[in-house]
């Protein structure tokens, strides 16, 4: 009996202890870890090495004497080679490349690869009028820049090139293995068989690191070319770091490699940071955290890297604006982990914000900003579940400091006192479109500051545009134009009923909510009725397989695609939102080159509408409110606002002007239907002149009505659109379905 009692006590104690400790152990561990790292010192800091002015760098190499050399093209399209002086900040020109290689409309240098021995390999491309394919020529440059043509024996385009430390030149052409090139004869010797299907490669010491289509790393010993090895530790480390290994362009590589001083030591760099790895070791050591530097910025692509004295690193990279040479030096006095951590949360991925975080951390090494994304393609979490996860975090006291309010229940958060008053931040911003911010105010205070916006516009013949006063007159015009010109469609023929309604949604949505917060059924019925009148049964949309999940919320309703079609005389009318400087350049180019065409803000069921995007809020529960406000102030500066990844136009006027001014004059845009290659259309855009920019800015300054951003209402309305315009249901039935769903939401 006594034994039984003892057993029962022990069992009870063990189970109770297990149950209680099971809840807390992991949290305690994390706190402990944080405490340890917060006191540790020593971190690599990033600095930009100023490159010769107005140049674009092709390649960089460390010569045998340790000098850093770059090859570049200046603003006139002249190529030259430069060495970094001993002061580490200024450059001296070594030689100019032949003058006849200067860039023209039909001729350009496509590759320059520098050798540690001082020589170089150059690929030039000549485009002949009327021919789709260009012709490449190959040259070898000696240490003084004397060019000799290399009769390279290949019919395929050169994709990737690299030199080994011994000066052996390796090339990979389209669909061919990595080959060694004899510069005199042009003979290509298969250096490593089995590399036909690799995506790209890098060279460090005598090892070729090839990345295959699954992101696996294959190692080829260049001294024993037929030996293929796998370094599972390296592959696993790269995979576990979450590095993106997908090739984005032929100019950059997602992974770059260079050798270290020690035998078998290799350094590699990805968007996650710079790592040290010992060949066949189990793990890689993170030396530079990508999230604390420019390496983690989504617009940064890697070109090449080199080591330098004192364990320093140089990384040649390109961002959305220019090529940059990043210099990393170890600072033993800087905290290993920044002292202040700001946590931002966004429902969906936001490339501009990621880019801004990189910029801010570089300027503020003591601040670490993380961006948690609720719903991504990878995690497959629905928007609703992501918001519930966020609620859990907030209620547990682990909520973020900053919130991207796009897709979040802002009204509910306001009602709960969740959002900080940001009026002072908005007031301190300079060169902002104050009208856009003013109209986000509630009770005289601003709780969410839009960093970006889109503007609904309509484009067409000037005499047609004059007739558009509202949605009904647009529908009248559409009916008048239908069938007038058999060569042209009324609007972008790619639109089905869903897309057509989406293009018009923002210009109409402000009219749908009554003062009592309920849906204005008459207005919504009118919307479906007029969209039905505009709908052209002759349009030929591509069957849409994506119309589920968050599709309605993420559909951008861009005007750009239609502008291209209208420029090519395939449309009569075009409408939708302008999202980027490129969209604007397409519009202004069309207007400039086709006198009869014009554009104006789209007045639907509401006038002067804008769509706020990346609306930022600060949590009242944040422990870092002041630092969060500083970060938000930075996000409104010109530097931050010039980040452009398609998320909308900047609310900073200077940034908008800068973006437009930096549009590459002469860029060509083209598109064709996936099911009809003959439908190809293209246009060459030109930088908008001051008058065109001024006119657009005037339109922006007139905008005073924010479009409805509620995703539940957007989804409910657009869900019914296709059936309604095709006559399967009446506008009244569509409205009934919408109100049934939305009224539940609004009643909650």
């Amino acid at each position: 009996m006594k034994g039984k009692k003892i057993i029962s006590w022990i069992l009870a104690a063990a189970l109770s202890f297990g149950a209680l400790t099971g809840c807390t152990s992991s949290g305690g561990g994390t706190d402990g870890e944080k405490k340890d790292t917060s006191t540790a010192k020593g971190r690599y800091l990033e600095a930009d090495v100023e490159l010769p002015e107005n140049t674009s760098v092709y390649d960089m190499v460390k010569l045998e004497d340790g000098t850093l050399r770059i090859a570049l093209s200046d603003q006139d399209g002249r190529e030259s080679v430069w060495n970094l002086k001993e002061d580490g900040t200024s450059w001296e020109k070594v030689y100019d490349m032949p003058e006849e290689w200067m860039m023209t409309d039909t001729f350009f240098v496509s590759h320059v690869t520098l050798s540690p021995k001082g020589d170089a390999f150059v690929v030039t491309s000549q485009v002949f009028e009327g021919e789709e394919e260009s012709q490449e020529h190959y040259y070898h440059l000696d240490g003084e820049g004397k060019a000799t043509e290399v009769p390279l024996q290949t019919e395929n385009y050169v994709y990737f090139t690299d030199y080994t430390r011994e000066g052996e030149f390796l090339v990979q052409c389209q669909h061919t293995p990595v080959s060694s090139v004899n510069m005199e004869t042009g003979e290509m010797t298969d250096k490593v068989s089995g590399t036909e299907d690799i995506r790209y490669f890098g060279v460090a010491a005598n090892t070729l690191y090839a990345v295959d289509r699954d992101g696996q790393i294959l190692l080829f010993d260049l001294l024993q070319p037929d030996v293929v090895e796998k370094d599972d530790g390296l592959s696993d480390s790269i995979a576990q770091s979450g590095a993106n290994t997908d090739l984005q362009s032929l100019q950059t590589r997602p992974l770059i490699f260079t050798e270290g001083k020690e035998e078998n030591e290799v350094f590699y760099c990805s968007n996650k940071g710079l790592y040290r790895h010992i060949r066949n070791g189990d793990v890689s050591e993170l030396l530079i955290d990508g999230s604390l530097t420019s390496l983690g910025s989504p617009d940064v692509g890697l070109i090449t890297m080199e080591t330098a004295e004192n364990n320093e690193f140089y990384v040649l990279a390109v961002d959305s604006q220019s090529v940059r040479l990043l210099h990393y030096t170890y600072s033993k006095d800087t905290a290993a982990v920044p002292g202040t951590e700001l946590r931002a949360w966004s429902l969906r991925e936001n490339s501009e914000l990621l880019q801004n975080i990189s910029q801010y951390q570089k300027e503020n090494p003591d601040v670490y900003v993380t961006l948690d994304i609720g719903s991504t393609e990878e995690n497959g979490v629905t928007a609703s579940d992501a918001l519930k996860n966020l609620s859990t975090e907030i209620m547990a006291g682990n909520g973020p400091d900053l919130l991207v309010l796009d897709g979040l229940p802002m009204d509910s958060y306001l009602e709960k006192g969740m959002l900080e008053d940001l009026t002072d931040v908005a007031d301190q911003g300079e060169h902002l479109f104050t009208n856009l911010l003013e109209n986000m105010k509630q009770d005289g205070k601003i709780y969410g500051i839009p960093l970006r916006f889109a503007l609904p516009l309509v484009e067409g013949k000037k005499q047609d545009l004059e007739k558009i006063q509202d949605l009904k007159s647009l529908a009248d015009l559409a009916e008048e134009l239908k069938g007038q010109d058999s060569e042209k469609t009324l609007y972008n023929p790619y639109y089905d009923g869903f897309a057509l309604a989406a293009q018009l949604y923002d210009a109409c949505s402000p009219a749908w909510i009554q003062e009592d917060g309920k849906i204005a059924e008459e207005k919504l019925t009118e919307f479906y009725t007029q969209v039905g009148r505009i709908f052209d049964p002759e349009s030929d949309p591509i069957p849409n397989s994506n119309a589920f999940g968050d599709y309605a919320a993420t559909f951008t309703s861009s005007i750009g695609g239609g502008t291209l079609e209208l420029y090519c005389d395939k449309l009569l009318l075009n409408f939708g939102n302008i999202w980027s400087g490129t969209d604007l350049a397409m519009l202004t180019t069309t207007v400039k080159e086709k006198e009869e065409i014009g554009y104006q803000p789209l007045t639907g069921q509401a006038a002067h509408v804008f769509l706020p995007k990346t609306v930022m809020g600060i949590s009242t529960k944040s422990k870092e409110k002041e630092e969060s406000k500083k970060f938000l102030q930075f996000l409104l500066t010109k530097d931050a606002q010039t980040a452009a990844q398609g998320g909308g136009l900047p609310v900073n006027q200077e940034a908008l002007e800068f973006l437009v001014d930096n549009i590459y004059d002469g860029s060509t845009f083209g598109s064709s239907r996936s099911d009809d290659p003959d439908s190809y259309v293209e246009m060459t855009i030109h930088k908008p002149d001051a008058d065109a920019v001024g006119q657009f800015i005037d339109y922006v300054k007139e905008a005073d009505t924010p479009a409805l951003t509620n995703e539940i209402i957007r989804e409910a309305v657009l869900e019914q659109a296709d059936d309604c315009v095709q006559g399967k249901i009446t506008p009244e039935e569509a409205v009934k379905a919408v109100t049934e769903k939305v009224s539940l939401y609004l009643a909650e």
Partner: protein
Amino acid sequence: MKKNIKKNQTGFLFVLPSLLGVLFFLVIPFADVVRRSFLGALSGAWAGLANYRTVFSNTAFRLAAGNTLRFEAVCIPLLLALSLFTALILNSLKSHIQFYKSCFLIPMAIPVASAVLLWKVLFHERGLLSGLLHLFHLPGEDWMRTPWAFWILIASYLWKNLGYDVVLWLAGLSGISPSLYEAARVDGAGRRQCFWYITLPSLLPSLFTISVLSILNSFKVFREAYLAAGDYPHESMYLLQHLFNNWYRDLSMDKMAAGAVIHAGVIFLMVLTLKRAWDGED
């Protein structure tokens, strides 16, 4: 006496882990919910009965509560009657009882996600039901977006839980001594009289347990409804769990806490009523 106390102490120690589990994971959290129902959502400021007033005046809550009550009122009696009827038939079978029991339990083993897929195949606008109606030149519909959605929910609940209740009724039936029936038949009782005067009264103790379990199981039907129709289904099948789910998403913890207390109170009252009825019969 002393021996009895010691015996009780030992028994108590064996249930102590479970009691602690219930205390930490149910009683204390629920006490916190009750506390929160009188406070602001994030501020923690005293709100008195304001949250309750808000909830009672909330049309979505009234609709969800009404639907939930309607669902209970329709499906619980239906399930009890159907399962008892099925159990009686199975009990009267001479052979293959195990086989039929297993057949009725199969729906319970089907994962919710698969059941939802079945719903969609059956009740989609271009699903089997619409296809069948089309054969008779009748129009198809997205049945989950019509008032029929409520009845689909009822059917789903019955289909899923019938086997479970049948097994419970069979357990109850097996506890009735066959000698009672033999004695009744000797006294000239027919099948109907045997049912009314022996079977039914003997099953009353089981009725309480089965009813409570059926009510509690009925709340699980939300999983199917949510997976099939999302946050905002047709209003006829918009249940309290939909509302709580959406309130949680929108951080309306104040309303959710008050709604949860009201919900728990109603269930508690229902169980107490059943218990009282059962005790009264005893």
